[in-house]
């Protein structure tokens, strides 16, 4: 592989630099706007995310859907597409999972969960494949179309939850009927972390193996690197686009299934809380590398998990952590310009300083 250790180090260094810059900017905002000591805030965030076994489990539970939704951006990115419709695939996957779960609820937990996962992955996959197909065969920009498809997906979810699939007993918050306690996805041995985390990690490992050790992954790299060359090699670019988008959408759909089967027990507006959008951030921060997605998702899951503590102790608004996420995203995008530069100027600068 052409990616040497130097490039890998560069990627880690640039991402770390972007994170550091975001921390500084957010810290300044805390001082100027909220009058809060940033060091205290960061200490609290660490405590709320990783400080105790209890908070770490909370972090991991939040990381699970992020890992899956991040793949929705990371897989098409390998082909040079920027898909940001993760949230739409997640909510539709959740609705499909809830519908399937209710339909087969009597056939035992394993069958129910399998049916829910299958339904979620098919719907989520088809949704993102639609954006990929529009791009490949109609020339529609996939970033815009996948974003707009998200709004359609949320509207569809509201329609189904408030209409055809509504549980008549859900009065204040329209929801689908519950799948039943017996059918809920369990937790991983003795912890409070549900199996969704394992799904996510397995999916990432699988993606890594496909990208690194199969001809399919090699072809994806060729297409992403130079579509013209890929066509000269006779590669069916459209097929790869559809498959990669469908696989990414399936992962995000599975995240919706996990939210329904392990957290809510039913589908309702709580599905659309932004895991899909944060997944975009995770994928970019991980440079679309499937293995890097796992630690990055845990980091961002931790930031999300610490929101409550910041609110209680420092009287910061709940959205403070969302502001931090936004700052991180801007810094990550800005840091793209730092790749491939010669860093010699840095050394020259130091030498001049030393004189």
């Amino acid at each position: 592989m052409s990616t040497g250790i130097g490039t890998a180090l560069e990627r880690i260094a640039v991402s770390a630099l972007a994170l550091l810059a975001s921390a500084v900017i957010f810290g300044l905002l805390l001082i100027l706007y909220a009058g809060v000591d940033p060091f205290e805030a960061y200490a609290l965030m660490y405590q709320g995310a990783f400080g105790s076994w209890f908070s770490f489990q909370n972090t991991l539970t939040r990381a699970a859907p992020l890992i899956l939704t991040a793949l929705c951006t990371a897989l098409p990115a390998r082909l040079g597409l920027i898909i940001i419709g993760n949230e739409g695939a997640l909510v539709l996957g959740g609705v499909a999972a809830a519908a399937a779960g209710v339909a087969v609820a009597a056939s035992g937990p394993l069958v129910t969960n399998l049916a829910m996962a299958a339904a979620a992955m098919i719907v989520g996959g088809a949704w993102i494949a639609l954006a990929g197909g529009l791009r490949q065969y109609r020339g529609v920009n996939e970033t815009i179309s996948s974003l707009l498809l998200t709004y359609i997906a949320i509207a569809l979810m509201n329609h189904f939850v408030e209409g055809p699939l509504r549980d008549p007993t859900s009065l204040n918050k329209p929801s689908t009927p519950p799948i039943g306690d017996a059918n809920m996805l369990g937790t991983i041995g003795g912890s409070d972390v549900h199996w969704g985390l394992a799904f996510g990690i397995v999916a990432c490992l699988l993606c890594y193996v496909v990208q690194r050790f199969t001809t399919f992954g090699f072809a994806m790299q060729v297409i992403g690197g130079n579509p013209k060359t890929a066509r000269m090699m006779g590669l069916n670019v459209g097929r790869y686009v559809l498959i990669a988008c469908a696989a990414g959408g399936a992962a995000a759909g599975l995240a919706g299934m996990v939210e329904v089967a392990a957290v809510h027990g039913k589908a309702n507006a709580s599905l659309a809380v932004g895991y899909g959008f944060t997944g975009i951030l995770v994928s970019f921060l991980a440079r679309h590398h499937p293995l890097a997605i796992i630690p990055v998702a845990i980091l961002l899951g931790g930031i999300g998990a610490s929101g409550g503590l910041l609110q209680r102790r420092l009287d910061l608004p709940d959205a403070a952590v969302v502001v931090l996420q936004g700052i991180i995203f801007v810094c990550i995008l800005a840091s793209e310009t730092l790749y491939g530069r010669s860093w010699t100027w840095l050394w020259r600068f130091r030498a001049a300083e030393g004189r």
Partner: protein
Amino acid sequence: MTAPSLELIGFTKRFGAMAALDDVSVKIEAGAFHALLGENGAGKSTLVKCAMGYYAADQGQILLNGREVEIAHPRQAHELGLGMVYQHFTLVPNMTVLENFVLSRGDLPAVIDWTAERRALNAFFETTPFTVPVDVPVADLAAGQKQKGEILRQLYLKRNLLILDEPTSVLTPDEADEVLTTLKKLTTSGQITIVTITHKFREVNTYCDAVTVLRRGQLIGTKPTSELDNDRMAEMMVGRRETRTVVERETRPPGKAVLKLEGLSVADNVGQLAVEELALEIRAGEIVGIAGVSGNGQRELVETLAGQRDLEAGRMLVHGEVYTATRPEMVRHKIACLPEEPLRNACVADMSVAENIALRSFDQPPSSPDGIRLRRSPMRETARKLIEAYKVKTPGPDAAIRGLSGGNVQRAVLARELSSEGDLLIVANPCFGLDFAAVAEIRARIVQARNRGAAVLLVSEDLDEILQLSDRIVVMFDGKLALQTDAATAEVGAIGRAMAGH
């Protein structure tokens, strides 16, 4: 304007472990027409880019008119009157000549007085040896006029030392002569100094006063042109008398039809028909050369055959079967392509040399035992052998291909495309921008493929190349076939007329 002299002293530039320039010194007299000669990767481009401030040299001093100057940025070079004209055009195509010229000035006011600017430009054109239309969008100019526009812009910006990087590679011989003749007049009258990078001995002999030869980053020497002949220049370039390895052409009747085009129509990027109802047949063991001025549908034709462009109407047959440029068909019929600008058209720049060499075979044994799994060590092994067999100069099979010089990228593509001994070879301007040793080698390999029984379609803007290699010559004009003739009996005048649309 008076022509300056330029002296580059002790230039060294390293890229990683490789020295692209090693202590190179050149003196260019005021008002000279000075040629830089060398093989691909000899360091010519690196040297002028260092002089222009695009690269920071590791070592080196620049004397302009005998005084030391520092050039750390292209802007500084421009302020000192140094300008560069590239092989490819840099004028903005959808803006007019006037707009392009005014735009490229550094000192634009917030509101531009176009009437005054037009008057000024017209007045400036009174003083120049040639002109271009002021109010025509650059996209509508012919290649020769565009190149003149590039040169005029440098003069307009008061640059009096021009560095030309293969300025004639996109021009017809007549256009090239016209441009070079006028430039020569400007140097003899002492208005400007010119440094030109070139591969064409003819142009060096006719127009240049002095020649500097580089080889693998080393200075071989600077000599007045009058002391040199072609053999001597060639020897300086490659370091040995060229032993021509032209493969003897076997004369034998061509075999069965390999490629057949029926009523082929192809659209260009804006949807206009670039190729119209083309019918053509290429048989085993023959080279069919397609001549024509660039922009008459050759590129679209090649891209369609290579699988990079969809066809509008008609069909392609290979070995009598309909061919739709899918990978299984390419493997079955053993189709190979050598396009122009291989880094852009036939490589993945960010992938390694080994991976690029494997692009045709990564899903076949030994790289993949079953078409699914990928094994990188046999891939690398195959690449290593081909790198040696085709003399690709690379730090190793795992180096990114974008770090290689143009000639070596083309060699790597040759290795990939020709090692499978294909039945159908599609070649487009294979020698564009390469030095003559690489050119001879590539042409020999194309003739070798033909002698082995491959059908070869050769598209070239270089008529000499077509005349040298082809068994049959076809001229394309405006998307249609204007002439078909046997190479042996071909009359050059008729070909030239057909190329011009007569």
